[in-house]
């Protein structure tokens, strides 16, 4: 029995040492004011700036993102870190281990509130799940700034501002470009044509909105040219798409969602879409889905930007997508400005904490292709 107690105690001790030992490579970024940064800043800026820096050092912000999985989030993190360094504030950045783990995000946000921060940055996976917490934050006087897709439908006054991409509009931009590339072929086609949408899930608002934005815009453009449109596949998208749907549709928009977020299942979806004889174009609505298209392209020479090939568009960047755009596997892709978003977020947080009025910031998005990928304006928002 003695040994048993010893074992339990040992494991407890192990927990402690493990935690302490891992201190070096924490996944978060508790950045404190580094003397170097402060000095250079002081040197560069007038004295008022220095005073401000001193003021800010007491501030600590909690940022709850949707995860750290995608390069996109890593880029946001980078923006947050650099800005926090520059301003000399404490930032603690966390996110659930997948974009579907709502329970974990709720727990993380609760923890963030319990940490008594100056302000909180939040990219909610689902607004419903955090409604009470938003109310709680408001009661406690902790300002919240939304980012990424923001916190839509939040109770009045709880979220002071959003610095977000309009995902719905971003999906629309992709639709415009894809439509421009295939419109002639739609006109030339005898039978139906099919546009595939590969979505990572149908639960995350931002992913759904990017899909819906694409679907609605594409349908709108097609309808303007006199074609009937129908939406098939995943029920969420069918139900929430607001476009006109006709029975004898010439353009079929086919939305596929995998059972779980793993590459092999998304690639299977792409394969199955490519197998349809009337497929014209594919749209992957986030990094995961775009990568699935790129992976599938290995087996399918029909993917590409040339004559009679299946036109594909992606979303976000990352090494694989950048290369695919350069190589002409993808027609183009939408990039948000994650680094800028991260920076803006911190600025907004600081402003909100100082009691200034803050307003929504649209961090914007851009369509990039092989031609403009190296433009400085675009390149600054691309990341590997």
């Amino acid at each position: 029995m003695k040994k048993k107690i010893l074992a339990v105690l040992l494991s407890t001790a192990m927990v402690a040492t493990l935690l302490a030992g891992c201190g070096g490579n924490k996944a978060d970024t508790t950045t404190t004011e580094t003397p170097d940064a402060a000095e250079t800043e002081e040197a560069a800026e007038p004295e008022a700036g220095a005073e401000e820096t001193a003021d800010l050092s007491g501030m600590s912000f909690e940022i709850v993102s949707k995860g750290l999985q995608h390069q996109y989030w890593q880029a946001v993190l980078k923006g947050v870190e650099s800005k926090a360094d520059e301003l000399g504030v404490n930032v603690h950045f966390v996110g659930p281990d997948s974009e579907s783990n709502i329970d974990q995000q709720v727990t993380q946000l609760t923890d963030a509130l319990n940490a008594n921060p100056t302000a909180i940055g939040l990219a909610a996976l689902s607004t419903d799940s955090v409604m009470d917490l938003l109310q709680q934050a408001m009661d406690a006087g902790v300002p919240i700034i939304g980012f990424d897709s923001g916190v839509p439908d939040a109770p009045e006054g709880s979220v002071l501002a959003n610095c977000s991409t309009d995902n719905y509009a971003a999906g629309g931009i992709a639709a415009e470009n894809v439509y421009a590339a295939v419109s002639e072929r739609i006109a030339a086609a005898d039978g139906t044509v099919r546009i595939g949408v590969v979505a990572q899930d149908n639960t995350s608002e931002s992913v759904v909105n990017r899909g819906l934005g694409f679907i609605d815009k594409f349908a709108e453009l097609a309808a303007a040219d006199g074609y009937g449109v129908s939406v098939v596949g995943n029920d969420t998208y069918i139900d929430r798409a607001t476009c006109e749907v006709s029975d004898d549709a010439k353009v079929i928009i086919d939305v596929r969602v995998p059972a779980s977020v793993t590459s092999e299942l998304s690639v299977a979806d792409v394969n199955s879409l490519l197998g349809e004889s009337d497929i014209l174009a594919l749209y992957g609505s986030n990094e995961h889905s775009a990568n699935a298209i790129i992976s599938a392209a290995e087996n399918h020479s029909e993917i590409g930007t040339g004559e009679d090939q299946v036109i594909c568009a992606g979303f976000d960047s990352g090494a694989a997508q950048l290369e695919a755009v350069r190589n002409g596997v993808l027609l183009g892709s939408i990039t948000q400005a994650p680094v800028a978003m991260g920076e803006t977020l911190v600025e907004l947080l600081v402003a909100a904490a100082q009691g200034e009025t803050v307003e929504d910031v649209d961090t914007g998005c851009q369509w990039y292709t092989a031609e403009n990928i190296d433009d400085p304006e675009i390149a600054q928002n691309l990341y590997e």
Partner: protein
Amino acid sequence: MEKIKQNAIVKKIGFNRLVLICVWILLYILFAVLTPIMRPNNSFVSYARIISIMRYACFMGFLSLGVTFVIATGGIDFSIGPVMFCAALISGYQLTSRDWPLALCLVLCILVGTIFGIINGLLVTYGGLPSFITSMASMMIAKGVGSVFTKTQSVSWPQSTAENGWYRNLLSVQAGGIEIPVGLLILFAGAAVCAVILNKTMAGRYILCIGSNREAVRLSGVNTKKWETLAYIICGTLAGVAAIFYVAKNTIVQPGLGDTFNNDAIAGCVMGGTSMTGGVASIGGTLIGVLIIALLQEGILAMGYQSHYQYIITGIIVLVVVYADLRSRRRRN
């Protein structure tokens, strides 16, 4: 050491459980000390954090209590997490899309769990299939059924302020600015009922004996299949109950998920001294086990780490606890 063990109060609570309680307290102190060091301006000792631990422990506790019965028979159920989600999806869909009354939906929620319990139980006992692979298969089926039923959409249960939002009071109630952890009380009550079932009724007696020696019980003229199936039914039903507390915490539930909760539930149960080989189970232990896991989660977050560390630590602790159990058992024989 022997003296402590022979102490009347210690005997009443059970020595192992006492050790676990000490571990909980030690961990709490550890987090309380380390949190301000790791994350300045932060403290672990607060009522809000206790509430946060409770919120997680509530649904996890019911899952864990349920699986305790199955493990007591020498089986395992990997389907509890997805079944919990499936139940919340189906009943939530009826509530929001078909406008069923809330009370009926809560019953339906529990019932869906029961049905999965029945299916698992029948497959394992009458079909003679190994429980772990059966429950893994039914885990997939539960995921599939949940998403087919809701047409792959996530379901948002009503907010507390909305009509039909009173179910959230089952988890916690705001009274005069203080949050009362009703859920924890219900969990304790549930655990008490479970403990009575396991230790004081025929069902519990036979479930434990089946876990210890199934054939001997059968040859005593006991309908072992019935009682073993009952264990799976209890497990499924409690997964249904857990679903209510899950939605009370998060309101939203998505299709195709839930398997991540299996590990924590089983870990809590095993940590509490329930033997994986069956025959030995402790409801009190399970409860403390779950509280330890909830504390770990909160503590690791509070110290500023991502939850990945929690998985590793839970895994290691379970291995160590089970090893200690094996060692003490081996020595006894």
